[in-house]
């Protein structure tokens, strides 16, 4: 397994995890997104605590890594509208959504030129 290569932008990729001790699902998510989208910026926050007691997730096996907030800046989004960008991420994380109990993903997706606006 190789570590993610720096993107073509001038600085190396900035990856911000939710904490110093991210869970296994978060690590897989970051790995998949980094490998496939080669983002210049990726920030992931874990909101599962906020939802752990909510009606929709009670009784679920995974209540610690079920809700994530992700911000991604990547040129892989160039020319794609928002539903397409989100579907791209949903597709990469299909396993996590279908089998690992990830219940919701809040996503902000921008290209490098968009964040400069």
């Amino acid at each position: 397994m190789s570590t993610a290569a720096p993107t073509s932008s001038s600085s190396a990729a900035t990856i911000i995890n939710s904490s110093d001790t991210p869970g296994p699902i978060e690590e897989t998510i970051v790995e998949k997104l980094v490998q496939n989208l080669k983002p210049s910026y990726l920030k992931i926050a874990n909101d599962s605590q906020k939802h752990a007691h909510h009606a929709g997730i009670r009784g679920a096996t995974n209540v610690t890594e079920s809700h994530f907030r992700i911000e991604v800046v990547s040129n892989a989004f160039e020319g794609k509208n928002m539903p397409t960008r989100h579907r791209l991420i949903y597709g990469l994380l299909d396993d996590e959504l279908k089998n690992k109990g990830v219940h919701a993903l809040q996503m902000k997706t921008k290209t490098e030129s968009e964040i400069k606006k």
Partner: protein
Amino acid sequence: MAVIEIQSEAQFSELTKSDASKLIALYFHTPWAGPCKTMNSVFKTLADSKANDPSILFLSINADDLSEISELFEVSAVPYFILIRNSTILKELSGADPKEFINALNQFSNSPTAVNGGSAPVESNGSSAAPIASANGTTVQEPESEEALEERLKKLTSAAPIMLFMKGSPSSPQCGFSRQMVAILREHQVRFGFFDILKDDTVRQGLKKYSDWPTFPQLYINGEFQGGLDIIKESIEEDDQFFEAALAA
């Protein structure tokens, strides 16, 4: 004893964990809410009628006294009913509609009770939501063929120029994201129709495939999928007239 009035959280935990196969009906009430007085006797009568059915447990919870339990289930209004089996929430009902509750109970219990006439819960929401007569109406008895489901979804997604597929209803959303989506639509004074996907699991699962989108809420405009909450929020940020523009397209 038919209705068990919960006295403590410990008792609640014990009763709800005791038997995984039991259908548990939770009834949240407060002494000061008018509609609760009627529902109190309805709940009691129903429980009494099922007193001989060991597979159903009727629990009554004073939402004020046992606020921890109400918060756990996100009970925001009383009377409130939740049907649970095996730690899974089967259905939630807000409001004082005995027929709706009986229907739900029948749907999930092994011994149906007679209902006086059919009931198709239709919520119309003042100026913002358009009433959808057939959207959440009849329960489909036979398994639908894939084509039939696809046809139904096509019709549903075009039932109104703006269609929101959400958890719960605009007056009683069952998820924070659905609630936010409703707030945005109302803020922009947009007329919309809605469908409560918690009330129809076939549509819930079918729409995930149809829209190629794994989560709810989902917004459709003129029969075209627009996105979930994040996308709508961003679209509005970029263009205040997003809804008007999309409708005109």
